[in-house]
């Protein structure tokens, strides 16, 4: 199967070179580049499935050419790597099918240069993510990580009309590199101890760490990957950068790039840094669980108040990363290495991994659907949309599918993984006592709140965007998206349905990662113990009997019920139907009468006012007397607490410090050289004599 790895890398490489065709024809470059990317993604799926379906313990190894004299580079695809490679490749398939048509429809006269740049960076981005998942040593990992970051940065700023994307890109760049710096520190600490770069050596080196060093490294890594994953309060770049990229890249960034950070975190927590013959330190799991809970709740709360379709979706990524981290954190808490892993830890990790692939599928789908809307209307503010369901039926239907999935409603995939997360949380709560149990119950309650709020948010997003009447000329003249874009969406929609209706069949592919990380039973041994049609959590005992569910039966039941209702309505109800305008007290109805997104979110804005700190201004222009109102202007905004409470303060502090340094600096070179000399003198005196 190393052939598959070679094909994958080759395809991405050819795709990047496809940009050379840009001078001939931008359209040709887009086609070729995306087609090669598609080939790479398909090869990636092949590699991943062959490893995931292969014998337990099989690791696909492939040495890389020696680029550096000091380190040997290699690829090593084990279960965890293969799983994340699968996630990357599944969404990459959709994005590469969707991409060329989108870029042409969105900006038909963009020019060949931009097409070339986008083709190069998209392929480097995809290749970087795939390589990162397969990396067998720290150097490959860091190179791929950096390549992925830089390529996605280029994509974020590739469509800059008014400078806002450049700003978003800058923020992304700064935050991403801050995180990367922490990762470098962690990796280099380990490589220096190990004297080598490959993960096996790092694992051996980490075994000799003392607890304090181990904890320090873990929290460095958590901060580093947390920045990339968009964990609150490190998320501020995410809702700016993700919407700025072209929509299929947004789908990749939100659906996949964040997951790559999760991969890194799992790799470090369960594999590289895990103590030998001891459970993980208690603080790790709890920190991750708390961070996940906070991210989930705050992510969805902020998403509710967004009226920019893509920005709303980006905030939902923060929420879903939170849910994934809740599962992962719980698995860390529950994992006991010596006791065979523990069934509950397996359930929790399965939930996290399943939600990873689920979120990739439905968030990818939602971003692609939002991209269809964007490329046909050129409007992202949903207040100016409306009534698109009739004009773009496929896009609307697929967006609805994604919305149902992300709202964790049966019978789609979001429900399955959130249900498993719930089972793990509740099972863990019933088995632990005191504050720990209480904390886990609280997390479960927060997860429930998150699910409810997400449903509310997508009622708003779908209703305001697709239902009602068009509120602008853009929306009124929208047409359905091109076929290839719909195909891309259908691929992800089909994934959502498959993972929702028959998740038991996908569980087999979670065996390798769960078993190898937890050294316990695989996912399917626990979750599909009663056959692939029934999901179980393997829990027995008081209060936990009701822990089996059959998604397939639920789906069949749902279909039957809908069919019954439809038949009954056809058979019985022949009530006369009449079309008439809505009664609007004598005024002629207009699209302005529809529910707006702002109005829909108002109740929650009031309930959570302490968090949102909403500000609004209403300006009434009257014609002479207060009784004749000519125009009312309304402007409102909510703040992101992390921004105002943390980042703004840091900014003020840094500015103040810089000002004070500026006031003190004389500008005289002699003084500066003197400072250097003095520092050197003192340092030499101090360190030299201390020895």
């Amino acid at each position: 199967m190393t052939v598959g790895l070679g094909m994958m890398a080759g395809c991405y490489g050819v795709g990047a070179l496809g940009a050379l065709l840009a001078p001939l024809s931008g359209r040709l470059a887009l086609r070729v580049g995306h087609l090669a990317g598609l080939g790479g993604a398909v090869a990636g799926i092949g590699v991943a499935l062959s490893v995931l379906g292969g014998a337990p313990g099989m690791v696909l190894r492939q040495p890389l050419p020696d680029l550096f004299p000091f380190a040997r580079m290699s690829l090593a695809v084990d279960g965890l790597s293969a799983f994340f490679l699968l996630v990357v490749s599944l969404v990459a398939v959709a994005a590469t099918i969707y991409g060329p048509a989108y870029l042409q429809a969105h900006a038909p006269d963009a020019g060949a240069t931009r097409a070339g740049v986008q083709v190069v960076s998209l392929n480097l981005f995809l290749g970087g993510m795939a390589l990162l998942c397969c990396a067998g040593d720290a150097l490959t990992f860091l190179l791929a990580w950096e390549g992925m970051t830089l390529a996605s940065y280029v994509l974020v700023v590739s469509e800059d009309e008014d400078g806002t994307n450049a700003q978003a890109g800058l923020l992304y760049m700064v935050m991403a590199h801050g995180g990367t710096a922490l990762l470098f520190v962690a990796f280099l600490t380990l490589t220096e101890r190990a004297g080598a770069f490959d993960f096996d050596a790092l694992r051996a080196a980490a075994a000799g760490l003392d607890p304090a060093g181990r904890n320090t490294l873990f929290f460095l890594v958590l901060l580093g990957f947390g920045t990339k994953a968009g964990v609150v309060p490190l998320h501020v770049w995410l809702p700016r950068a993700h919407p700025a990229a072209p929509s299929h890249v947004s789908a990749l960034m939100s659906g996949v790039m964040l997951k790559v950070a999760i991969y890194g975190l799992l790799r470090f927590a369960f594999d590289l840094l895990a103590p030998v013959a001891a459970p993980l330190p208690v603080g790790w799991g709890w920190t991750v669980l708390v961070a996940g809970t906070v991210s989930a709740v705050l992510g969805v709360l902020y998403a509710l108040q967004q009226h920019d379709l893509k920005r709303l979706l980006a905030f939902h990524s923060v929420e879903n990363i939170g849910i994934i981290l809740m599962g992962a954190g719980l698995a860390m808490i529950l994992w006991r290495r010596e006791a065979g892993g523990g069934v509950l830890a397996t359930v929790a990790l399965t939930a996290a991994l399943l939600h990873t692939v689920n979120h990739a599928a439905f968030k990818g789908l939602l971003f692609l659907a939002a991209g269809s809307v964007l490329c046909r209307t050129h409007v992202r503010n949903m207040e100016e949309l409306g009534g698109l369901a009739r004009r773009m039926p496929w896009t609307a239907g697929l967006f609805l599918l994604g919305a149902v999935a992300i709202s964790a409603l049966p019978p789609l995939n979001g429900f399955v993984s959130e249900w498993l997360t719930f089972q793990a949380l509740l099972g863990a709560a019933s088995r632990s006592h005191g504050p720990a149990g209480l904390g886990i119950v609280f997390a479960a309650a927060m997860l429930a709140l998150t699910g409810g709020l997400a449903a509310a948010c997508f009622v708003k997003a779908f209703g305001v965007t697709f239902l009602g009447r068009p509120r602008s000329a853009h929306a009124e003249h929208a047409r359905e998206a091109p076929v290839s874009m719909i195909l891309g969406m259908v691929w992800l929609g089909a994934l959502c349905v498959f993972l929702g209706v028959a998740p038991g069949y996908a569980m087999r592919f979670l065996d390798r990662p769960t078993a190898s990380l937890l050294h316990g039973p695989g996912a399917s041994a626990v979750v599909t113990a009663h056959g692939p049609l029934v999901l179980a959590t393997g829990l027995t005992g008081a209060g936990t009997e009701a822990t089996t569910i059959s998604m397939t039966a639920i789906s069949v039941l749902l279909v039957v019920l809908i069919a019954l209702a439809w038949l009954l309505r056809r058979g019985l109800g022949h009530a006369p139907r009449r079309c008439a305008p809505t009664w609007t007290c004598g005024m002629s109805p207009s699209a302005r009468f529809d529910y707006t997104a702002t109005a829909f979110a108002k109740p929650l804005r009031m309930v959570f006012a302490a968090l949102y700190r909403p500000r609004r201004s209403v300006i009434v222009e009257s014609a002479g007397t207060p009784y004749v109102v000519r125009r009312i202007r309304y402007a409102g905004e909510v703040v992101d607490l992390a921004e105002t409470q943390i980042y703004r303060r840091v900014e003020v502090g840094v500015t103040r410090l810089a000002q004070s340094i500026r006031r003190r600096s004389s500008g005289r070179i002699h003084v500066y050289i003197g400072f250097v000399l003095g520092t050197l003198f003192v340092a030499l005196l101090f360190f030299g004599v201390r020895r």
Partner: protein
Amino acid sequence: MSPSTTAAIINDLGALLLFTMLLILAAGQVYRAIYAVAAQSLFIAIAGAVLALATHNADLWLIAAITLVVKAMVLPWVLHRVLQRLNVRREVEPVVPIAVTLVLAVAVVVMAFHLSGSLGAVQQAITGNALPVGIAITLLGVLVMATRKKALTQMVGLFASENGIFFVAIAATQGMPLIIEIGVILDVILAALVMAILVLRVRSTVAADVADLSRLRG
């Protein structure tokens, strides 16, 4: 040549180097500082030649020759030319009085010797007292840069500092790889050329010197 003789010669050369360094520090006029740094470079070339004789390292001969030509002849000549072209007052114009500089220099030298005492293991591998002398000259070069107003004297300080590093390098390792030595010397030549041109241009267009750069403060 026996090792003890070599060590004795290197020690004596080290003393001469320190002496020239003090001459640079104490120089009241710019051209004296330039002659002193030229003499210092000459001694380093001699040190290189002595080491080459003792270790039979052919590369060291080459390095000594390059040092002699570039550092002891060409660079002082460039500096001297710049000085003549500038046609300004020849005084050094110290930021702090020369006497105070000398006191500071004494502190630096004492510290350098004190420090090298605690680096016993390193000192074993080094010919004589080269390490403390090298450290002292390096730091004193920086001291010259810090305490003199004119760009020319700062260039002198830079060369002296570079000489210190060079001395440690050849004495400590019996010659670094040839390519590195040549690279370092090229760096110095480039720095000298750039600074010389810069000084002349700045002087001819805005009639300012390094001390006036403080007006550029943001």
